[in-house]
C-alpha cells in the first residue's frame, strides 16, 4: 500500500466516521463536531494530493489553510447557533428543532 493510498483510505474512514456522527447522534454539538471531522477528511485529501500528486499542487496546501480558517469560523457560528437554539427550545436535540417541516 502506497502512502497515497493510505492517506486516501484514512480520509475515507474519517469522513465515514464524521458522517455517522452527523447521522446518528442526536446532539447538535456532536453533529457539528462530526461535520468538522468530515472537513478534516477533505483537508487530508488535499494534502495527500499535494504531497503525492503530479506536482505543482501547492494550491492544495494553501487551500487547506483557508479551509481550516473557515472551519474555525463555522465552528464558532455553529456553536453560537446551538446556544441560541438551546435558549429558544431548552434543548439541543436535533429532533426537537424540526421547524423545517414542509
Amino acid at each position, binding site marked *: 500500500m502506497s502512502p497515497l*493510498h493510505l492517506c486516501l483510505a484514512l480520509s475515507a474512514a474519517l469522513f465515514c466516521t464524521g*458522517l455517522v456522527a452527523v447521522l446518528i447522534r442526536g446532539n447538535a454539538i456532536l453533529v457539528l463536531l462530526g461535520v468538522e471531522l468530515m472537513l478534516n477528511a477533505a*483537508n487530508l485529501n488535499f494534502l495527500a494530493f499535494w504531497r503525492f500528486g503530479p506536482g505543482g499542487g501547492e494550491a492544495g496546501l494553501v487551500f487547506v489553510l483557508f479551509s481550516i*480558517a473557515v472551519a474555525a469560523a463555522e465552528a464558532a457560528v455553529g456553536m453560537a447557533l446551538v446556544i441560541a437554539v*438551546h435558549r429558544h427550545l431548552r434543548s439541543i436535540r436535533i429532533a426537537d428543532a424540526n421547524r423545517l417541516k414542509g
Partner: protein
Amino acid sequence: MTTLLAVLALICLAPAVAAVLVRNLIHSALLFVLAWLGLAAFYLALGAEFVAFAQALVYVGGVSMVALFAVLLTRPGRTDLLPPPSAARAVGGLAAVSLVASMLASSLFWSRLPSMEPTAPIPLRRLGELLAGPYLVAVLLVGLILTVALIGGLLLAAPRRPAEGADA
C-alpha cells in the same frame, strides 16, 4: 514512511470512532480533540508542518474549547446520549458505511493512481510569499469571514435581553 503513516492513521482513527460511539458527551468531545491531535501529527508526517501547527492551534486550541463551552453552557445532562436505535438510523448508518466502502474500494482496489514520489516540502518562506502574494485577496477575505463569524457568533449567542441572560 508508510508504516509511520499507518500508525499515525490508527492513532487518529481510533479516537474518532470512539468519539462517535461513546455515550458521554464530554468524553465524546475530548475524544474528538484526540483525533484532531492525531491528525495534526499525520500532517506533520506528511511534511506539511505549517498546516499541522495550524490544525493543532485551531482545532485543539480553539474549536475544542468552543465545543466544550457549548457543552457546558447547554447543560444537556447525562440523559442526552445515543438515541435509541431505529430503522431509519440503521439505514443511515448503513448507507454511510457503504458509501465509504465504495470510496475505499475505488481508491484502494480499482484506482490506477500511480504512487508518486513525494514532492519537495514547501519552505515556510515560500508559503508566506504565496499567502502574501497571489492569495492575498483570499487571505483578506478569510480574515473578513472570521471577523463576521466572530461578530455573528457573539450576536447569536448573546442573550436577547440582559435580564434573560441570567438564567441562560
